[in-house]
C-alpha cells in the first residue's frame, strides 16, 4: 500500500506533529515505553560496551568470576596488538574497502543513470539482474575465483580482493544511487537538456552536486560491507593481503588466554565501521533493502 505514493513531506510533517503532540503530555505509559526502550537498547549494546572496556584491562582482570567492572585502564593491550604487527592487516582492510568503494561508485553512477534518468529499454531487467548477482551465495563462486586467482598469480593479492568487493557491492550501489536519481526534480534535468548540456557535463555539473549526500551514504554502506567481509578474505588471502578479520582468526586457538588483547584488537577492528554506520544510519535501511525501502 501507498509506500511512496503518499506525499512524503506533508505526511512526515503531520506524523511529526502528532508525535510531538503525544510527547507533550507525559503519561505513565510513555515513561514505561521510554524505560523499556532504554533497557533493551543498553542490553543489546552491552556486548560492544564490554568489549570496549575489556580492551583497557590487564589480562588478569579480563577473565574473572564475577566479572571485573572497576579497574585502572591501561593501554598495554593496544601496545601488544600493535607490536604483533596489526598495522599491515589494518592497511589491507582500509585499502580493499576504500579502493572497492571508489570503484563501485565510479561504475554504479553511470549504470544507475542509464537505468533511471536515461531509461534505456529493458531497464527493469537490468536492475533486477544486478540484484540477482547480490543474492548469489558467495560459496557458489569461491572455487573458480580461487583457481583463477591462483593461475594468474593473484592469490593473496589485495587488488584481487578489492575487485571481488567491488562486484559484491555493485548491486547495492546501483540500486541505491538509482533510488536517489529518481527523486531528482525532472524540471532541473529538462532545463539542462534544453540548454544543450552533454551527458558528462550534465552528470558533473547538475546531477552530481544534487545527489552528493546520497552518494556519500552509498559509499559509507559499501565501505561497511567491504570492511566486515570475512569469507572471501579468509579463502583468498594468506599473509600479504590478509585483512583485519583474518587477523582475528589467530585468536580462535588461544581462547581464554588473551581476552583483553582480543578485545583491544576487536575494538580497533569494529571502530571504523561503527563510526561510518552511525554517520550513515539515516540511509542504512535504504542500503540494506537495496533501495526498496526509504
Amino acid at each position: 500500500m501507498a509506500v511512496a505514493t503518499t506525499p512524503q513531506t506533508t505526511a512526515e510533517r503531520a506524523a511529526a506533529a502528532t508525535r510531538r503532540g503525544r510527547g507533550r503530555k507525559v503519561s505513565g505509559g510513555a515513561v514505561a515505553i521510554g524505560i523499556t526502550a532504554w533497557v533493551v537498547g543498553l542490553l543489546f549494546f552491552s556486548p560492544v560496551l564490554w568489549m570496549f572496556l575489556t580492551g583497557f584491562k590487564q589480562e588478569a582482570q579480563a577473565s574473572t568470576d564475577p566479572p571485573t567492572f572497576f579497574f585502572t585502564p591501561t593501554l598495554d593491550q593496544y601496545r601488544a596488538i600493535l607490536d604483533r604487527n596489526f598495522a599491515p592487516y589494518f592497511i589491507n582492510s582500509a585499502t580493499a574497502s576504500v579502493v572497492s568503494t571508489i570503484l563501485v561508485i565510479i561504475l554504479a553512477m553511470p549504470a544507475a543513470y542509464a537505468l533511471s534518468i536515461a531509461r534505456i529499454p529493458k531497464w527493469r531487467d537490468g536492475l533486477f539482474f544486478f540484484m540477482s548477482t547480490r543474492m548469489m551465495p558467495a560459496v557458489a563462486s569461491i572455487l573458480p575465483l580461487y583457481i583463477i586467482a591462483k593461475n594468474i598469480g593473484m592469490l593473496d593479492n589485495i587488488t584481487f580482493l578489492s575487485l571481488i568487493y567491488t562486484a559484491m557491492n555493485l548491486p547495492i550501489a546501483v540500486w541505491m544511487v538509482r533510488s536517489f536519481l529518481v527523486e531528482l526534480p525532472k524540471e532541473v534535468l529538462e532545463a539542462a537538456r534544453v540548454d544543450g548540456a552533454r551527458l558528462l557535463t550534465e552528470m558533473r555539473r547538475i546531477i552530481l552536486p544534487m545527489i552528493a549526500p546520497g552518494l556519500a551514504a552509498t559509499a559509507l554502506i559499501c565501505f561497511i560491507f567491504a570492511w566486515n567481509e570475512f569469507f572471501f578474505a579468509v579463502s583468498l588471502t594468506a599473509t600479504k593481503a590478509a585483512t583485519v578479520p583474518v587477523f582475528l582468526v589467530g585468536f580462535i586457538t588461544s581462547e581464554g588466554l588473551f581476552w583483553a588483547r582480543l578485545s583491544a584488537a576487536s575494538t580497533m577492528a569494529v571502530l571504523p565501521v561503527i563510526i561510518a554506520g552511525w554517520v550513515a544510519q539515516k540511509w542504512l535501511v535504504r542500503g540494506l533493502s537495496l533501495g526498496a525501502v526509504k
Partner: protein
Amino acid sequence: MAVDAEVPVGTAPRRRPGPKRLSTRELWTRRSPLLPALVFAVVLTQLPFLLTVYYSFQSRNLLRPGTAEFVGLSNYGKVFTDDLFRNAVFNTVELTVSVVLLSMVLGIAFAVLLDKRFFGRGVVRTLLITPFLVMPAAGALLWKTSIFNPVFGLLNWVLSPFGVGDVDWVSRFPMASIVMVLTWQWTPFMMLIVLAGLQSQSPEVLEAAKVDGATAWATFRRITLPHLRQFIELGILLGSIFIVQTFDAIFMITQGGPGQATTNLPYFIYLKAFRAFDVGQSAAAGVIVVAATIVIATFVLRVVSNLFQEEA
C-alpha cells in the same frame, strides 16, 4: 503502477519514442553508461558461477589441477547421498528459520518501541543498530569468549541468581549459541525495515481510527500489521538469503562442531573445497545452494517488484 504513463526524463522532447525510432547506434549510445558495470558484474559473478557448474561435472583435486576428468552427474549423486550434506542442509534450515523468526519478532517489537516518542530516542536507536555494524567475525569471537565462557562468561554470571551453574553454552547448546549470536546481529536489520514501514503509515488513518474509538491493539492488528506485511515479507526474504550464507559465526565459534552439529551449507562447502580439496563435490553442493537460493530470491524479487511499482 502507471510506469508507462510516465514521461522518461531523458527523452522529454520526443515523448515515448517507439522502439523502431531508436536506431541501433542511438540505442548503444544510451546503453553505454550501463556497460562497464554490467560487464564487470558478469565477469566477476556470472562467469565464476558458470565455471562452478562446469567443475561440478568433473573429478578434480584443488592441489592437483592437471588431473581433472569428466564424471557426469556422479558428484551430485555423491553429494545427495552424503549424510554430512543432508545434515548440513538440515542445520542450515534450522539455523535460518530460527534466526529469521526470532530476529523478526524482536525487530517488530523494537520498531514499535522506537516509533514512539521518548527521551533519547535517537541514542537508543543508535545503540540498537550497533550489533549489525560490528564486524561479524569480531562479534562472534567476543560472544564465544566473554559471554559464553562457562566460568568467566557474562551469560552465566547474569543467570547465576536464577540457579544456573557453570554451563558450557557452546559445547552443550552449540546451535542455540549460534542462533543467539546471529539473532543479536540480525535484529537491527529487521528492526530498521519494519521501522521504515511504521513511519510510512499515513497519520490521518491512525488518527481516524483513534477518533472512531479503536483500541491501540485493534489499531495495530487491523491497520498497522496489514500495512507492515510487505515490509515484514521483505525483511524475512532478504534476511533468509543473507542468513543462509552464514559463515563467520560458525568458523569463529564452533568450527562446525561439536562433531557436525553446527555445520551449515557454506561451511560444508568450505570444508570440501579447502580441507578435502574436492573441487567437484564442493562445486556440486554450491550449485545446489544456488538453486535453493533462486527459489527464495524469486519471492524477494516479487515483493520488491511490488514495492517498486508503487514508487515508479
